[in-house]
């Protein structure tokens, strides 16, 4: 027999086995086919198909759906029509449409085999001539016996099915845990609820034995499997269709528009180079049939407006698309591929069969609008790609602990110290966790051991669907004819597959992503213009500006796109050049597991001698000092050394960034080794080069992408250098950079800017800069709702506030909002007496008067405010910090007593290179890395009022102090000041926790 009803872990929070493990088990038992029937979804389709291919068994695509009258119905796909119907049925069920088998709905079930336990449904199917079979369950029962007799009467088959949620019996406790999590119950409640039997996939012998009384049923299941001959959804690219308004061929229109764009980009007469390159690119695009794809992307990026002009948007083309001159001329990308040597072949070449990939960044707050336009315009022909969100260690432990009834604070104490990612390792989760230095003082007694053990079973199981950050698919007909579509909680339609599945099925994805820095640049320039400056972006070449280059070369790039992280700033300091070309290299070379290459790059950049990896690579990697920097360098090396074809080499590059690369990499590895040996390369050399290629695990960029990003980096750096107040205000307003608002405020102060506290009379919603001052925006007030902020602005625009009570009267803020407004200093402008205590009194009196009970028969008599003392300065600061998360006029470290120790200020460290110093700093952020021997160590960033300091915690020191370290706390550090190519770091040896900044008052000295 063939198992026709098997659920995998994609029956979310219920099934326990992955499709791969089910297929392995099925193959081991000798089944020749397997039907995967997850509950109303095809989430696991592609991993199922891949596993079937791997195990050499025949896949049957199916699902289980809930019906109104007939209980669960199993649907198996017979043919193309059936597949389309299945996608439609699932999509309808996901829209909560009810479904039952009737004469009206009959066409929807064509091409499918229905398995049912409902006698009525089987009869209806027979009448409507739909293919159906009786579902006998996984052991003979009285009900099964009745169904079998009925099936015989109706002349339809009756089949046994595993009806299983588990792969093997041992997964029962995992299944119960999942049910407890799904129902938000404790484990023992789930136990009580799970009285119904849970089944797993048995061997064919077990089913044959059980059903030996009804010998014909096993054969019947084989016959049904035989009829379900549909192997996989159609291959071939499904390109987004272009609306041809002018009845002209897409190729012609594209050529016309590309030339038009080129004339705008390069001026009236086009250089020969440009014309040649355009012709070359257009030829390939046309030949490969991608002309309409370019036009669709163009229509999305710059949609036609009713007046016939195109809407201009601030964008940044990313990915390999930036290598296309056509894209540049269509304003889909912003870097000239000719000037920066970007090869078109990286993007498209006739040897490749996979779809082109044009990804575009929009300002983060405009992106949703773009998406809404696309989804609105294409309607049911567009949907977003989803992400399958799986349990990770942190969430798995958290959910398990909840099911064990532990209180939230205990769980947080444990999980907040867990790293976000674990290295793949042979150790069990329990062993990994108990050796984490950051959890040194954590108590693992009691139920924790069991919790962690059980949680490890959850890791990797899919939990829910989320929306991919920007992937959109657009199809010729309704998307739900190709793939089931459902509604994400945020309201957009999503397909049931991740990007890899979408790609496998031939759906071409366009990435429309949000980018904070585009918003920063937009707002900084907008702020400049409202300040009356005349700033034009026409002919703006920040990469040629000397001051900007100097700032980049000195690492003064906090707040600048992509080059603000500590590692990046240190690298720029070491490189010292500030060149655009070098920045393109640096943006890509910075990646985990590439530390030694970074060091080597700096050495070679400063004139260090180097030999090419291999004589054959001399030309290939010359531009990057013989180092592999970009994604495509992997392909280049594979071609040059191991004789790969271009498309094979490209395949290798792609596999490197996949999640499950190990298996697929094996073949490439063998081929690479073989090819190199054929070219007489030493085995040890091959080993070394291969290891270098393996350090590209999804983090490196291709050169066009890197160049495209470097341009945005330079734009930000330019603004920061020339218009610091406007730029920093925009950085903070757009939020979400690498650092916290607190850190950006400190940076602004270090740049010599004055931070003016929020003020309801003058503050805008966002932060604003002018000259050497920044005014805090109302958005910085924690706990004041967006509505209240907007009400403040709208009331003020009608008439400035006359007094505090006028403000309360017109804005009507909530009680907790008043507190924040007063504590932050936003009310000081309305406080003539300079006494915040009295403002509080006034607000409270007003609240009582207007609050519930206040408007009674006898309204409270208003009594004058008593003489209240103004808050002590330290108390004011404490409250300001609580309301804003930073201090406008001073740095918290200045308020901390030194306890008699001689300490060094951040700016003075440069005078102490090679010596031990004490330094008091506030911890901003950290990055844990693993040493060569697998020990954990951390690079941490601290700051005081004068500088931001990068520190190194080597493994032993890290082990000793990791549990003490958490952001926004102040520490006394003792360590050695070191210098490397002009970049300073502090190698820490001793750490003392000084205080929590939220308790400023207690340590003020």
């Amino acid at each position: 027999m063939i198992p026709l009803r098997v659920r995998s872990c994609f029956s979310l929070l219920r099934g326990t086995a992955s499709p791969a493990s089910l297929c392995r088990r099925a193959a081991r038992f000798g089944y020749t086919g397997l039907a995967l029937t997850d509950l109303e979804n095809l989430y696991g389709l592609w991993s199922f198909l891949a596993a079937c291919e791997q195990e050499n068994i025949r896949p049957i695509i199916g699902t289980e759906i809930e019906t109104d009258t007939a209980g669960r119905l199993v649907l198996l796909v017979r043919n193309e029509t059936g597949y389309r119907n299945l996608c439609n049925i699932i999509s309808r069920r996901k829209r909560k449409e009810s479904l039952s088998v009737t004469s009206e709905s009959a066409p929807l079930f064509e091409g499918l085999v229905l398995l049912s336990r409902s006698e009525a449904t089987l009869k209806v199917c027979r009448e409507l001539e739909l293919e159906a079979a009786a579902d006998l369950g996984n052991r003979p029962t009285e009900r099964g016996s009745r169904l079998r007799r009925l099936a015989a009467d109706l002349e339809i088959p009756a089949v046994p099915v595993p009806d299983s949620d588990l792969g093997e019996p041992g997964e029962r406790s995992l299944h119960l845990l999942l049910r407890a999590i799904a129902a938000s119950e404790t484990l023992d409640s789930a136990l009580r609820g799970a009285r119904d039997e849970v089944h797993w996939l048995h061997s064919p012998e077990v089913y044959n034995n059980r059903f030996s009384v009804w010998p014909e049923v096993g054969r019947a299941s084989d016959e049904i499997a035989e009829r379900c001959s549909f192997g996989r959804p159609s291959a071939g690219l499904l390109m987004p269709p272009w609306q041809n308004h002018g009845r002209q061929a897409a190729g012609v229109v594209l050529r016309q528009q590309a030339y038009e764009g080129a004339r705008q980009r390069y001026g009236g007469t086009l250089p020969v180079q440009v014309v040649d390159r355009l012709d070359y690119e257009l030829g390939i695009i046309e030949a490969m049939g991608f002309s309409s794809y370019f036009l669709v992307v163009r229509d999305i990026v710059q949609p036609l407006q009713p007046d016939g002009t195109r809407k201009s948007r601030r964008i940044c083309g990313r990915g390999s698309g930036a290598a296309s001159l056509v894209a540049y001329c269509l304003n889909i990308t912003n870097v000239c591929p000719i000037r920066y040597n970007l090869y078109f072949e990286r993007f498209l070449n006739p040897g490749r069969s996979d779809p082109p990939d044009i990804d575009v960044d929009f300002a983060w707050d405009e992106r949703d609008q773009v998406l809404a336009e696309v989804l609105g315009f294409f309607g049911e022909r567009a949907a977003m790609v989803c992400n399958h969100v799986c349990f990770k260690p942190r969430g798995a432990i958290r959910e398990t602990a909840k099911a064990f009834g532990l209180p939230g604070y205990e769980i947080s104490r444990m999980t907040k110290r867990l790293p976000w990612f674990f290295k793949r390792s042979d150790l069990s989760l329990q062993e990994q966790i108990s050796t984490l230095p950051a959890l040194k003082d954590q108590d693992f007694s009691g139920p924790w051991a069991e919790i962690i053990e059980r949680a490890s079973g959850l890791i990797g199981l899919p939990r829910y669907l989320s929306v991919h950050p920007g992937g959109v698919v657009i199809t010729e007909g309704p998307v739900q004819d190709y793939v089931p579509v459902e509604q994400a909680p945020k309201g957009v339609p999503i397909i049931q597959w991740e990007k890899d599945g979408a790609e496998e099925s031939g759906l071409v994805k366009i990435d429309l992503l949000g980018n904070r820095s585009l918003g920063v640049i937009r707002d900084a320039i907008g702020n400049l213009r409202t300040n009356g400056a005349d700033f034009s972006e026409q002919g703006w070449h920040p990469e040629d500006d000397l001051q900007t280059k100097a700032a980049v070369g000195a690492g003064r790039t906090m707040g600048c796109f992509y080059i603000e992280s500590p590692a990046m700033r240190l690298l720029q300091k070491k490189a010292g050049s500030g060149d655009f070309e070098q920045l393109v290299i640096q943006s890509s070379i910075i990646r985990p597991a590439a530390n030694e290459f970074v060091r080597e790059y700096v050495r070679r950049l400063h004139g260090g001698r180097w030999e090419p990896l291999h004589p054959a690579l001399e030309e290939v990697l010359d531009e990057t000092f013989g180092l592999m920097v970009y994604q495509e360098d992997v392909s280049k090396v594979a071609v040059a050394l191991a004789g790969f074809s271009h498309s094979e080499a490209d395949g290798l590059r792609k596999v490197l960034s996949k999640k499950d690369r190990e298996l697929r990499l094996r073949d490439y590895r063998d081929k690479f080794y073989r090819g190199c040996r054929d070219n007489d390369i030493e085995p040890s050399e091959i080993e070394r080069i291969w290891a270098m290629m393996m350090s590209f695990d999804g983090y490196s960029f291709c050169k066009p992408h890197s160049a495209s990003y470097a341009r945005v980096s330079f734009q930000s750096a330019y603004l920061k250098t020339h218009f610091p107040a406007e730029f920093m205000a925009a950085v903070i307003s757009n939020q979400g950079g690498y650092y916290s608002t607190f850190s950006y405020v400190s940076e602004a102060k270090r740049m010599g800017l004055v931070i003016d506290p929020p003020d309801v009379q003058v503050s805008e919603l966002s932060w604003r800069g002018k000259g050497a001052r920044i005014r805090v925006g109302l958005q910085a007030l924690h706990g004041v709702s967006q509505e209240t902020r907007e009400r403040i602005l709208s009331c003020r625009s009608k008439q400035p506030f006359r007094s505090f009570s006028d403000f309360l009267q017109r804005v009507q803020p909530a009680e907790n909002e008043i507190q924040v407004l007063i504590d932050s200093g936003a009310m000081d402008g309305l406080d003539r007496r300079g006494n915040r205590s009295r403002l509080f009194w006034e607000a409270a009196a007003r609240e009582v008067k207007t609050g519930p009970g206040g408007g009674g028969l006898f309204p409270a008599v208003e009594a004058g405010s008593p003489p209240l003392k103004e808050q002590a300065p330290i108390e004011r600061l404490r409250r300001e910090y609580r309301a804003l998360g930073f201090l406008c006029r001073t740095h918290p470290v200045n308020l901390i007593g030194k306890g008699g120790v001689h300490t060094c200020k951040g700016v003075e460290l440069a005078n102490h290179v090679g010596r031990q110093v004490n330094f008091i700093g506030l911890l901003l952020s950290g990055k844990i890395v693993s040493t060569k021997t697998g020990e954990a160590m951390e690079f941490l960033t601290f700051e005081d009022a004068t500088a931001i300091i990068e520190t190194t915690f080597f493994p032993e020191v890290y082990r000793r102090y990791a549990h003490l370290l958490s952001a926004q706390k102040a520490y006394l550090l003792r360590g050695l000041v070191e210098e490397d190519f002009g970049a300073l770091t502090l190698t820490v040896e001793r750490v003392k926790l000084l205080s929590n900044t939220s308790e400023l008052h207690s340590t003020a000295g």
Partner: protein
Amino acid sequence: MNHHRFILHLNVADFAVAVERVVDLSLRQKPVIVAPLQAARAAVYDMSEEAYRDGVRKGMLLNRATRICRAARVLAPRFDLYRKAMASFVNEARSYSPVLEYGAEDGHLYLDITGTHRLFGTPPDVGWRLHRQIRSKLEIDPIWSLAGSKLVSKIGSRLVKPVGEYIVANGDEQRFLAPLPLHLLPGLKGFERQRLSEFNIVRIGELAALTRMQLHGVFGRRGETLFELSRGIDDGAVRPEEAQPPRVVREHIFSNDCADRTVLKGVVTALAAQLGMELRLTRMAVRRVGLQLDYTDGATISRQASVRKGTADDDCLQRLALTALERALTRRTRVRSCRLIGDRLHPRSPQLRLFSDSTSGQKKEHLLAAMDRIRQRFGREAIRLGSQPVLP
């Protein structure tokens, strides 16, 4: 006529620790934590002043507490001992006044000694004498404080904690309170404390400086309470036990907090059986059973179930208790302790029924009576239903 009252407040700080220190002298001056041993998730029941200063708090997980205060000696709680000690403590006080109010094993006691000076001398003398008496007889050293109201005497105790005494003369309350920090004032609600700190009012005297009208203006109806509190005005009487509505209480504290419903049900059933026996022995019946669940994160949920006709029957009590449990088990968090309270008590009628109950009813009554006799003779756990767990 003299309206002055004299209220004595006695407080044995960290009662359980104080009792343990009586039993074992070597514990004095050392940090002590009282918590169930041999339980992975034990919570701190009580701790000494030394441990408190290190950051140990009641209800904190023992594992965490011993990390914070590594020097601490950890003792298993001995509730019977504390109950006995509390009874002796109360008895000593009882000889000075019949009007006394106290809680369960918490070492707090109010004594109204108004008008006893002819019998025992001046009120401060009573304080000194009672203190001396308790110290010599029970070897514990309570704080005591004398004032004209429960409120002021309690503040006095708070002020001198952990040892000492304080006497506030009648009429001297305001002067006494004025310089004290606000946090010593009992009865303020969280938002009131917050508001006062916003007004930068940090001492009781600053609060007392506000007029009634001003307080009404910013605190509404609660203004009156604040007005009286800040001036030490408290007319609350010492409420002796007899004046409180009668009730029967049984409690179980889990040494490892519990998330298992089956165990919880068993415990509640056992508590109901204890309640039933107590009721039958005193020939009382209850019309309502309440259950208070203390969750491990500090939340408390109380739910009740009631019947029209009073009962002392185990089955009926268990049904009520389990109904209350169903109603109270609304969260997914572990339970630290549960308390079963029988109230709306009335005496069982000795009158026999005219039309007797069914024979099975009679049989059951006989069975319960027999079980009660066995328990009285051989201990509470000598006989029980198979489904009931053994409770300590």
